[in-house]
């Protein structure tokens, strides 16, 4: 069997507890993904460290608390994964996180992935957050839309915070509980912007899941 990420041949170890699961990663690649437990670190964004990180304290002071559950830490192997998945466009690679994403308990009414701008979508031809959302058990609704197309990964934190909110809601969401989904949580600005637009449109309760939390 070949590892989905590094392509190396490996022998899966079958035990009674995992006979029905797909083993897609070789052991060396697998241990590189550090799982984010729910107990340690910041209780709002999952950042390793104190129980409430300064950023989240800031959001709380503004009255814009958003509880986010990252599944993994964004470290070397995770970066290699994102490079292949998002920037080279290897969408089948997401299979690696299939079992983890299926395990996410979705009690909310709708799962809402963070959208891409039309220009970026035309370039990439898939929305990486939407694919993550569709892999989870729940009802996916594309109620958000993004208008501007500012290059994203190259902005500093300051630029990101200063930017106007590019999202707007295109379907009625009144009274719905919503789970936002994104690929990487870096500053949290994206998720908070999307959440504030959804609250404005009348959503009842919003929380978020991201695949990675950058450290």
């Amino acid at each position: 069997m070949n590892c989905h990420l590094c392509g190396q041949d490996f022998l899966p170890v079958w035990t009674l507890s995992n006979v029905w699961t797909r083993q897609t990663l070789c052991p060396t690649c697998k241990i590189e993904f550090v799982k984010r437990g729910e107990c340690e670190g910041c209780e709002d964004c999952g950042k390793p460290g104190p129980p409430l990180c300064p950023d989240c304290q800031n959001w709380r002071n503004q009255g814009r608390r958003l509880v986010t559950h990252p599944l993994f830490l964004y470290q070397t192997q995770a970066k290699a994964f994102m490079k292949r998945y998002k920037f080279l466009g290897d969408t089948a690679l997401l299979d690696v996180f299939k079992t983890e994403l299926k395990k996410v308990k979705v009690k909310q009414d709708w799962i809402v992935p963070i959208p891409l701008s039309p220009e970026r979508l035309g370039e990439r031809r898939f929305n990486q957050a939407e694919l993550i959302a569709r892999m989870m058990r729940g009802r996916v609704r594309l109620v958000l839309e993004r208008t501007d197309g500012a290059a994203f990964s190259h902005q500093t934190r300051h630029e990101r915070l200063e930017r106007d909110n590019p999202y707007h809601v295109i379907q009625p969401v009144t009274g719905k509980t919503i789970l936002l989904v994104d690929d990487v949580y870096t500053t949290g600005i994206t998720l908070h912007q999307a959440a504030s637009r959804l609250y404005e449109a009348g959503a009842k309760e919003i929380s978020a899941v991201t695949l990675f939390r950058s450290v």
Partner: protein
Amino acid sequence: MDLRGRLIPDYRIDTLVDAPLEYRPAVTWRCERCGKLPTRGPCTCGKRCYYCRHCLIFGKLRTCDRLVTDPRPLDPVRPDYHTELNLTSDQQRIADAIIRTIDQQAKLLVHAVCGAGKTPMLFPGIERALCTNRRVLITTPRADVVRELTGHLTQAFQQATIVSLFGGSAERLGLGDITISTTHQLIHYRACFDVVFIDEVDAFPYRTDRTLHRYVRQATAPGASLILLSATPSLRDQRLPTVRLMRRYHGFPLPIPRLRIPYTKQNIVDWLRTHATQPRLLFVPQVAALETWQTFLHQQGIGCETVHAADPDRVTKVARFRQTTGILLTTTILERGVTLAGVQVAVLDADQSFSSAALIQISGRVGRSADFPEGDVVFFANDRSDAMYEAIDHIKRANREGFR
């Protein structure tokens, strides 16, 4: 942008092309670029869209993409003559065989020992090809070998345009009279080379990866002559018509590896101290072993450097090692294509994961220059493996054949 002889995805075209272009689908039931089976993937095109996972690093190809080529014929090749060579009679014999193969448009395997002087033997053949209007390709799986060959060929052929292609080279999608390329880069070329030399045919990954064989096959024009070069050809390659050269160009025999079974760490320290005046290469079986040996040698007061395949400054480290008489710890990446004057070689844990071909190549690093035709090769091991004895047997047999 000249697209004759190339086949690239249409989104790669960056400048305007004023030529009748030929488009074809990028992914049908297989990937039209690399030939592997595609995978279903989400796409905004709205149809059932498949993409190829295997050649993804060359740019994603989907069912809704197109490949583009320019069907016009290529420019004729400029004839060129190589600078003066002094080949030994043995080398001349091989060079004549290569010329004959090029004239007959046939296939040939050149089985020449490490340090036999394979590169200069190619020059008469390349000259013949260029003079009969045929485009030459020299391809090899290793980027280091490409860099080294480019240096040799630019010196030998002054008039011909020489293009060297490897991952990250500046001459992307170039096509010269002589093209020197890694096998991977040939994925963008279609039916444009009339004489193909494959250096180090048995090197990783060309040995195991059949898609690389396909890239080479697609890049060769119909009726091309194919010349394989190796010191340790596989049995499969040896079915081709073969010429053998079992003698080094300076006429000295190959150094025969010594065995040290069992060994202690102290033996290695002693060995390093006895050869303190010369550069020393230590080969280890895994990347993980590099660090343990480095820390051990540091404790003994011996400074050394390490290189492995994923090392970012691998090229500079090897270049620095060429000038000094230091110690370099390395994995099998330096087993081929490097010539270091007066180097001494030790293989640590030679019984572990070294194939006999790798051991023969490693032993072939020693005594390559005419100034230092002899040297020491030691296999340190705590167990016996077939590969070690096969390698020694091969080297001994090569010496016997070369000095009959």
